[in-house]
């Protein structure tokens, strides 16, 4: 069980994001050059490194001979250890977790480690995107090898110095030890020697036995926490560079609209305003859209001037779109189990439903919502000729860099990009729109600019999580066994839009895809899923566990309805379905276009792991307790992004309909090793509350082609009083590779709570946001 009063290690040493090696003498560092020692960089790193050689040229003799920092580790003669965190930090804790892995195998004290954020540098680091909960699974083994490689070279250096066999040397806390002679050498004293040694081959490395781990698996406090609590942590929006102007950018509220004219002459006369101009932009809904830029000598001057901006827009063909019309159409389409594109069909569902002892029918829906990063989108950029330097809170620097090249013609090699700490990601900062906007404004203005979006911009021009509708019929036989499942999903799509562009075909927005292989697909002999896409011009993007939140809400809610109809316990009904899976489980089919798929990074649905978390959550929660009316428990589980998570939620609903989540018991299987217990718990705690808030409150409404919710007054977010009173977290450590927790913990929470609300009140919640449903009971 996880409790919040266990004391994690606290450390305060940090290095400013994107800062170079500071005052340290580069020559004094141990060198593991990525280019000279390709063997150090395994797998995708090595591949990228060699690809980059051709692009940027071979290193010169001078740089080869220099003690240039390696990709991930620097050790100074003083013994100071610096570990480079190459992935973007947005609250998911990756700049703590990955260095923990390196430090573990390097065998140094965590308190002695300084963490430095890596610049955007694909040749050096490989992918620096943080999305899809992939950073841990893709980096766990490579980071171990990074640390082990350095450790092996330091041990070799000591053994040679002392004239003793390597096999007699051990390491601990940043020193090499030779027990027989009682000798000990700090790593710092060995760097000069170690730097002359060949990099050992990967297959010669001896990794630690996990039972000897001292750092990995502990509760480690976030690497910049000391800076965060003193206001010193620098986020994207905190950047300031000499000569910088403060920019705002107004885009057409109707997605895809263009600027016809604007009162720029007046705007230029306003206090503090230095420049104002139109950016023509492109047709890419998630790229550089057209708009009007105002540059002033302060943020407030720019914000103030913007209030007087008058723009005549060409709103384009979608200026009459509305949520009301889309919803009406969706019901017309989806209420018929025909006409959609087949995602998956097995058996004869229509016949099975006709012959079923009992048929349950339901319609679920959820609206568009926003990512709502608390740090509004922003970027600081300085274009000089065909070069640009960028400071951006991004979780995907490649995306912004790609747009800067494609929209502004700046060669990829001329983009210098600082990945700042981000005030939240949630998938929004996988998009590079705000980065290319800042660069475009700087390019046209000829000065460095910091572009800051308003909260209203953020809610109006998010790359939204798509809304959707699901119409489902389930057939039970006389024994209560699920024999048929017919499902029509109506979602939203755009023509050829989406991240990175694409062929001009109608495809679902990110998170609007449908995986026909999700639970309970393979447990039902007659199973039919179809999808219809309604075309719109709304920019859509991945929102934390794209698609899975919606899918889990729908399927785990409907499975609960079926359990009730079958007169079975909700846990047992699910276990029966898992038992009905063919053994071994059928391999996952390819997800539908645009879908995230259940795997979210690979790996098919594993029945045993699903059963494991379901049973663990039920057991730890004491499933089966009797509650008085107005209280109840609900259960749900889901598999996404390689992780299995189940929740039991216990709720109280007052007679007047006020919901209180009293307790949530979590069971998570993300493999055999949790890297940072504190960080892992944080992701689950946050997912529980975020998932509840999303289900309860969040809703965007489209009218006249534009999103009409302006700010937090119209778009409420969950606050402290609504947070669950008690959260208990349990990990099921199955013998699988460690995987991420940023996403898989969010999808099952809404259905668990929704099912608990049903147990408490008899009211079945089938539409987000729940706040629109009266929960009162008598």
């Amino acid at each position: 069980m996880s409790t919040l009063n266990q004391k994690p290690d606290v450390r305060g040493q940090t290095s400013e994001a994107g800062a170079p090696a500071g005052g340290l003498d580069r020559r004094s560092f141990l060198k593991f050059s990525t280019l000279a020692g390709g063997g150090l960089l395994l797998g995708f790193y090595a591949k990228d490194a060699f690809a980059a050689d051709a692009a940027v040229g071979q290193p010169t003799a001078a740089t080869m001979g220099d003690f240039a920092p390696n990709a991930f580790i620097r050790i100074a003669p003083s013994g100071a250890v610096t570990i480079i965190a190459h992935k973007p930090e947005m609250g998911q804790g990756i700049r703590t977790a990955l260095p923990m892995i390196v430090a573990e195998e390097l065998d140094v004290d965590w308190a002695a480690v300084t963490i430095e954020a890596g610049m955007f540098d694909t040749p050096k680091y490989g992918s620096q995107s943080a999305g899809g909960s992939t950073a841990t699974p893709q980096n766990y083994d490579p980071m171990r090898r990074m640390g082990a490689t350095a450790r092996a070279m330091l041990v070799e250096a000591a053994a040679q110095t002392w004239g003793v066999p390597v096999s007699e040397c051990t390491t601990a806390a940043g020193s090499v030890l030779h027990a027989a002679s009682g000798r000990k050498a700090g790593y710092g004293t060995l760097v000069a020697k170690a730097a002359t040694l060949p990099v050992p081959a990967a297959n010669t490395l001896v990794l630690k036995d996990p039972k000897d781990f001292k750092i990995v698996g502990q509760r480690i406090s976030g690497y910049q926490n000391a800076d965060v609590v003193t206001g010193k942590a620098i986020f994207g929006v905190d950047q300031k560079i000499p000569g910088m102007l403060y920019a705002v950018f107004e885009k057409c509220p109707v997605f895809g609209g263009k600027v016809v004219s604007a009162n720029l002459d007046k705007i230029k006369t306003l206090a503090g305003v230095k420049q104002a101009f139109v950016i023509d932009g492109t047709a890419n809904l998630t790229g550089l859209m057209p708009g009007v830029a105002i540059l002033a000598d302060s943020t407030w001057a720019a914000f103030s001037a913007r209030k007087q901006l008058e723009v005549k827009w060409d709103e384009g063909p979608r200026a009459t779109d509305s949520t009301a019309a889309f919803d009406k159409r969706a019901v017309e389409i989806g209420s018929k189990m025909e006409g959609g594109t087949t995602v998956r069909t097995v058996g004869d569902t229509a016949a099975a439903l006709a012959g079923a002892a009992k048929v349950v029918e339901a319609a679920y829906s959820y609206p568009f919502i926003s990512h709502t990063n608390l740090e509004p989108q922003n970027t600081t950029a300085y274009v000089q000729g065909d070069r640009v330097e960028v400071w951006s809170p991004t979780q995907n620097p490649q995306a912004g860099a790609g747009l800067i090249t494609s929209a502004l013609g700046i060669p990829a090699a001329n983009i210098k990009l600082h990945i700042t700490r981000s005030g939240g990601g949630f998938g929004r900062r996988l998009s590079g729109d705000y980065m290319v906007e800042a660069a475009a404004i700087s390019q046209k203005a000829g000065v460095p600019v910091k572009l800051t979006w308003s909260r209203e911009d953020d809610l109006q021009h998010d790359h939204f999580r798509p809304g959707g509708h699901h119409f489902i019929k389930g057939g039970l036989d006389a024994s209560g066994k699920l024999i048929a499942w017919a499902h029509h999903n109506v979602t939203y799509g755009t023509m050829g839009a989406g991240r990175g562009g694409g062929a001009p075909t109608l495809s679902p927005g990110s998170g609007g895809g449908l995986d026909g292989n999700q639970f309970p697909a393979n447990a039902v002999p007659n199973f039919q899923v179809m999808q219809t896409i309604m075309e719109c011009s709304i920019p859509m993007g991945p929102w934390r566990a794209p698609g899975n939140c919606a899918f889990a809400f729908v399927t785990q809610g409907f499975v609960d309805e079926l359990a009730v109809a079958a007169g079975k316990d909700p846990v047992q009904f699910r276990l029966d379905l898992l038992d009905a899976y063919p053994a071994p489980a059928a391999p996952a089919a390819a997800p539908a276009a645009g879908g995230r798929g259940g795997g979210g990074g690979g790996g098919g649905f594993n029945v045993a792991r699903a059963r494991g978390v379901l049973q663990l959550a039920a057991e730890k929660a004491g499933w089966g307790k009797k509650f008085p009316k107005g209280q109840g428990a609900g259960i749900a589980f889901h598999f996404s992004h390689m992780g299995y998570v189940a929740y039991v939620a216990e709720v109280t609903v007052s007679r007047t309909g006020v919901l209180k989540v009293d307790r949530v018991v979590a069971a998570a299987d993300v493999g055999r090793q949790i890297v940072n217990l504190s960080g892992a718990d944080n992701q689950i705690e946050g997912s529980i509350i975020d998932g509840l808030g999303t289900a309860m409150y969040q809703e965007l409404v489209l009218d006249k082609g534009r999103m009409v919710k302006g700010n937090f007054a119209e778009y409420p977010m969950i606050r402290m009083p609504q947070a669950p009173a008690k959260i208990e977290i349990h990990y099921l450590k199955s013998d699988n590779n460690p995987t991420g927790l940023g996403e898989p913990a969010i999808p099952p929470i809404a259905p668990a709570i929704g099912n608990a609300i049903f147990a408490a009140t008899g009211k079945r919640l089938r539409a987000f946001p729940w706040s629109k449903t009266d929960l009162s009971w008598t």
Partner: protein
Amino acid sequence: MSQYTLNVNGQSRTVDVAPETPLLWVLRDHLDLVGTKFGCGIGMCGACTVHLNGTPARGCQTPISTVGTQRVTTIEGLSATATHPLQKAWMELDVPQCGYCQAGQIMTAAALLREKPKPTDTDIDNAMVGNLCRCATYTRIRAGIHRAAELGANGGAR
């Protein structure tokens, strides 16, 4: 534009800005105190919370012309050495995720603890309801305030 001399974190600072300029932007753009954050601009997220004479105020809703001689305290001035019990508790319990809201959370909580050194969960909920955390660290914020109350009672620096 007008000149204003402010008392910020115990220092006298003079700025030349428009009278309606919110304190938030004076702090961030003119005084380079960027620990106070912009989240919504309408006083509903609490990321810009500072103290005026010890009382929490929304920096985005406080025109500079209304500040006068009030003592302005920002997160940078809460404790010169990061030893306020809330700061220690936040690090100990690993409260922050992205961290963007936490300055505002801590400033609001600091005022609560001054009023109520031993707050209940309800006290905490009532005091903190105006501060959004998008990462939803609310359970740890709650635990962090309780922990800070313990540290304060045990003689921690205030």
